[in-house]
């Protein structure tokens, strides 16, 4: 009878190394899962003051306070599902952290508002590229019945080949027009008026960096 024979290179040390490596791997994945989870919360995101400024309108929105009680937190919409994708998103997103520290003073409401459109365009592109995947975590097109009789038809017939973000933008954060019709000049004048700045000051603030 033959005895189960391990290959010769599986020495005791190798077995120990594999075990340690395996556990470390599992630990790492568990860590990433926890890490992604924690870094997707509103509490974490708003540790940067600049994020408070965009969280404010979110807290007034139906995604924060829906009748159903199903609250979407920052990461539910802005971080992909799955530990690897989520980690990747966080990795890419770390450039925001970099910019927060070394870039313009996003904590300043004026600077924040001036940069907001670019952030909105980037976010919309992100949603579009992923076929609004994070929306679909909660929303199922076929299950959107709405309160009016034709809502379900609109979603199953007319929006058949569309992705959520194509129609549903400006839902949560401050209204920013679509890129195709956005006018930087008008936006800057609006922000100047809103914050009582003199005409042209916004352009200087934007160009100054």
């Amino acid at each position, binding site marked *: 009878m033959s005895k189960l024979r391990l290959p010769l290179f599986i020495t005791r040390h190798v077995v120990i190394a594999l075990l340690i490596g395996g556990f470390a791997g599992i630990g790492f994945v568990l860590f990433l899962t926890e890490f992604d989870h924690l870094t997707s919360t509103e509490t974490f995101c708003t540790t940067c003051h600049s994020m408070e400024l965009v969280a404010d309108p979110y807290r007034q929105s139906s995604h924060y306070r829906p009748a159903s009680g199903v609250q979407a937190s920052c990461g539910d919409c802005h971080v992909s599902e799955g530990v690897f994708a989520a980690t990747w998103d966080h990795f890419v997103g770390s450039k925001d952290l970099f910019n927060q520290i070394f870039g313009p003073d996003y904590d300043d409401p004026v600077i924040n508002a001036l940069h907001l459109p670019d952030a909105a365009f980037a976010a919309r592109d992100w949603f579009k590229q992923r076929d609004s995947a994070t929306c679909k975590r909660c929303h199922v097109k076929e299950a959107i019945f709405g309160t009016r009789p*034709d809502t379900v*038809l*609109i979603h199953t017939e007319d929006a058949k080949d569309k992705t959520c973000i194509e*129609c549903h933008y400006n839902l949560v954060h401050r*209204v920013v027009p*679509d890129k*195709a*019709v956005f006018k930087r000049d*008008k936006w800057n004048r*609006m922000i100047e008026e809103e914050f009582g700045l003199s005409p042209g000051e916004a352009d200087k603030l934007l160009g100054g960096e």
Partner: protein
Amino acid sequence: MLTERTLGGTGHWRLYALLFLFLLIPPAVAEKVKLDPSNWGLEEGKACVSCHKKSSAALTHEWQSSAHADAGVNCLDCHLADQVDNDAIEHEGAIIATIVSPKDCGRCHTKEFKETEGSVHAKAVSVVKNRLPALADDLSGKEMVAAGCAQCHGSIVEVRGDGTLTPETWPNSGIGRINPDGSLGSCSACHGRHSFSKAQARDPSACTWCHTGPDSPDDEVYASSKHGMLYEANRSKMNLQSDQWVLGKDYSAAPTCVTCHMGTTPGVKGSHDVGMRDAWSLNRPVSERQYLVIFEDGDRRELPESQPAPRRGSELVKLDGTMGKVKAVASPKRRRQIMSKVCLECHGKNFVNSYMKQFDNLVKLYNEKFGKPAEAIMAALYEKELLTPAPFDEPIEFSFWRLWHDEGTAARHGAAMMSPNYASWEGMHRVAQNFYGEFLPQLRQLAGEAVANELIETHLTSLDQNSWLNNPAKPNPTLGYGIGKESHE
């Protein structure tokens, strides 16, 4: 010497002349869109309806039953916007604007656009601009402007830097609306969205949406006139749906607002310039007959007859403050002639002229007996500093305002449109009640007996019409004087 040949030639000449004359006669048919149909029916706009009949079924239904739908004009044909437009928004992949301005409508309806553009309707904002600070801001409040003034006169539509329209200025269908594209007016003031039905716009209710109430009681005046009476009774005979709507050909049961102020008759060309046939200014403290000045660029303005008539080719200030070159001037007489021509479709010449005489006489009576004296007294009070320069902080200012703006207007409009009740009881009688019962007592209280008497003597009792005030002993039993006593024979 006449030969057969030349005679024959003359015959031809006559025929051509007749043909030529025939061509000169204004078209009796409403202006048709001259644009080639390839200019509308945008491919990208055909899909809108599929969703909109679910999301806004009633609106879509209105469009579906419209002439626009029949002709293949779809949502995008009107709502299409350019990326650079201030109010352009992205909507389901298309770049559109919520507001369809007269300029947009004018892409196809060129004639109507040109006519309304220079009309008093399109200038409805500038007409009240000077009054707004006192009337709207002080007396009521800015919130009222959006819900009140601007709904008829039009708002100055504000587009925020994020492309949204401010709730202070939109929604608005005011007839003098200043649109984001710079054009003036709103076609939907009269032509309800989205059916744009001819019948609806020809119905007097299209006008009386704004022309009602104390300062322009045209709804009430018309309803209590013979014309309005006939319209009510004969609405089913009015042929309002007809493609062509020429008085005497397509309908005859009654004239509506449109008939007299814009409509086509066999001798009069229809026009969307609604004030064109008005010889008088009827909404001022003192009425004046007025010229209509037509500029080279199609813009128009009115000028009181007391001023010299501008010459053709001369420069004149337009209502927007810029200079314009005068192309033509229509005298008040000419304007009256055109209006009278409409009347002649139903009435005899003598009837029309005498009726106009009755109307003119009432306007002159109002002017001389009340308008001018009251205006002169007010000017004197301001000059003597018996009144503060600010309007509406003293009772007499309200009385004067009501005298010409409400009661005086009711009287003059009542006479213009044959409502005996409005000419008299709602009009002149209220003017008199106010003038003798409020305005003059307030004057005495404010200025003291001596100054008041001096002003009254200068501006009132020297006039024939007011000389009855000099005769307080003349009895009349209307209010009970002498009743119960033995008659004096």
